[in-house]
């Protein structure tokens, strides 16, 4: 078995009296696509942020590709890990191309290499190359999130962290973008950790679902494995939700026709 891409051991994180993470250990192998699911406040976003140093654990260790993150400059860590989140956070004063090339620029790439990389990434996320010269405000929500993904991939990271990446999009765009990203994950052999509260999305896109509840991991495995082995009623309810929804949907559509 190859060494894990991400390894978290006994992570604790407190905000005042509230324990956001209460002894979490998680190992993600290279090439895995893992979903972190759970209710609001379960600690899934905090867990994601401990991986790239946007949050620092009070106790426990974080290793990325075998190296401890503690004691390293966080900005250097983040330049090696792609990060996509729901609000996207494109820089409104920079063009799409400048947004995409930001991490390469911080890494000191030359101009020609950056320009070539921007074209390559626009092709990859299925956006016309002309948008490189536009400002983010001129794009639609779906296009903006594609730019967000392109920006995260720009410096060729091996790991991508995503926090509800498609949460603010309409359902059609959301499905399309999800499928496109899954293909990219395969094509680029990425390791992806994605936070979502949508179990359907988790089941459809990822290989492994990790369920958090009150700062602890309560289930971890493929969706089928979890359904077979879990005894936690909340976990079962979460896993059942997509199927129940699908059945209700079918039932309603049949009555309507």
């Amino acid at each position, binding site marked *: 078995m190859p060494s894990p891409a991400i390894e978290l051991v006994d992570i604790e994180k407190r905000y005042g009296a509230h324990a956001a993470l209460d002894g979490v250990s998680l190992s993600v192998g290279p090439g895995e696509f893992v979903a972190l699911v759970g209710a609001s406040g379960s600690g899934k976003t905090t867990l994601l942020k401990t991986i*790239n140093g*946007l949050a620092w654990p009070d106790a426990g260790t974080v290793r990325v590709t075998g190296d401890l993150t503690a004691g390293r*400059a*966080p*900005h*250097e*860590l*983040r*330049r*090696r890990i792609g*990060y996509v*989140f729901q*609000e*996207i*956070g*494109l*820089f*409104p*004063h920079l063009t799409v191309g400048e947004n995409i090339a*930001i*991490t390469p620029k*911080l890494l000191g790439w030359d101009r020609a290499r950056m320009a070539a990389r921007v074209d390559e990434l626009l092709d990859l996320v299925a956006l016309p190359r002309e948008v490189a010269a536009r*400002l983010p405000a001129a794009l639609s929500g779906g296009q903006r999130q594609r730019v967000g993904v392109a*920006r*995260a991939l720009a410096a060729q990271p091996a790991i991508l962290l995503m926090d509800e990446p498609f949460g603010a999009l309409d359902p059609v765009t959301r499905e399309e973008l999800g499928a496109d990203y899954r293909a990219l994950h395969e094509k680029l052999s990425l390791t992806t950790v994605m936070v979502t509260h949508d179990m359907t999305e988790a089941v459809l896109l990822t290989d492994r679902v990790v369920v958090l509840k009150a700062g602890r991991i309560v289930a971890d495995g493929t969706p089928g494995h979890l359904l077979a082995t879990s005894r936690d009623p909340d976990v079962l309810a979460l896993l059942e939700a997509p199927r129940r929804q699908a059945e209700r949907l079918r039932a309603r559509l049949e009555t309507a026709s």
Partner: protein
Amino acid sequence: MSPRVADAFALLSEYLGWHVLLSASALALGLLISLPLAVAASRSPRLRWPVLALAGLIQTIPSLALLALFYPLLLALSALSLATFGQGFSALGFLPSLLALTLYSMLPILRTATAGILGVDPAVREAADGVGMTARQRLLQVELPLAMPVIMAGVRTAAVWTIGAATLSTPVGQTSLGNYIFAGLQTENWVFVLFGCAASAALAMIVDQLLGLIETGAARRKRGLVVAGVALLAVGLVAGLLPLASFGKPASYVVGAKNFSEQYILAELMAERLEGAGAQVTRKEDLGSAVAYRALAAGELDVYVDYSGTLWTNVLKREDNPGRAAVLAELTTELKRRDGVIVLGSLGFENAYAFAMRADRARALGVTSLADLAREAPRLTLGSDLEFLSRPEWKGVDAAYGFNFKAERSFQPTFMYRALSGGEADVISAFSSDGRIAADRLVVLTDPKGALPPYDAVILISPKRAGDTRLIEALRPLVGAITVEAMRAANYSVDRDEGKATPAEAARALERNLSARP
């Protein structure tokens, strides 16, 4: 062009140059201090409140007072520095003006920059961290560029305030467009006042518009507008400062003047004598009364004219009145001993508080002295200037003669003379060298009890010029050479409403009328 407008234009390049230099330096320094402070305040809520509150507090201090307060502060610092490092610095002029205006410019910049940085979308800030920026890169590449339009709005406000408030640096000895306004107010030369206001307003408007261009460019992300705005500002700055290069020659003498016509005329008289002796001269006019003496003692002025009674009470803190000659003699020894200041001598006239009446009225009542006036007082109205009734001179003379006027009324000086001629006042508190005494044919009442302190006009020379024979020889002929009548005529030529002379013209006329030394 009328001659007064031409006079004003002749001074424009010098005044404008200093005004531009002063306000640009204050604004630049204000930005240099405010921006880092705003960044710190936006990072720390605990720092934010005290910083913004302090800047707000400074803003509530009237700007003239803020400027004036820096003078004693810097004087003390200079003395400290002289004692510690053996090197003092000038507490008058540019430095206090610069510091006060810098403080003044800080609030709008601090407020808008703090709000601008705090207003950056948290998602954008998170993205900046997420893509791997250091805190410094995040500030310079994301937060400041995004806050720039808001910050520029603050810079515009600060620029307009600073340019306006810079006119107030004249009384602390810094040349600015305020020289027109302060000199004009004193000599009732309204052309000068308007000219100064218009020049300062025009400067503020042009700078505001150019900064507005940069603001629009920053907001619409149009680099061309930003570059154009910056380039035009730079051209304006250089054009404004260019004339200063030729004024930059170090002057060998600094002649001071307080803020009224007689002082302007006497400063001009002394300056032209020094120039006649081949010296370079800088004039510092419109100085506050207390500022002038301290500046002279500190060597920032070389020479100016003060009055014996003022020095007696304000500098030596004396309340007795041993008589004109004794006051003069004691001042000469005491100022020399205390501060090393040389009293070169009396010019020959007094500018004292004096009670004046219309000649016909005085004759009808049979009043020639203050003793006579006390007898008639219950039937008479006293008109005074705005401060006389609260000054020690009035308390002293009132105690000596026991006046019991029917009424006491205060006027602005111009209206005080009109009230006397119109009969609304029967007797007024005038200044004995005021030109209007002769012009209105007023009678000055004698003071048999010697209750009014003497106010001999004396030439004071700074300690560092005590052995300067060129200076002393150029000015010594003025001692005892100006009669009160000659001074009144000179003052009147500047103060009258019709056919006004400039202080320089009046000084030249006075020079021709010097009486032979006694």
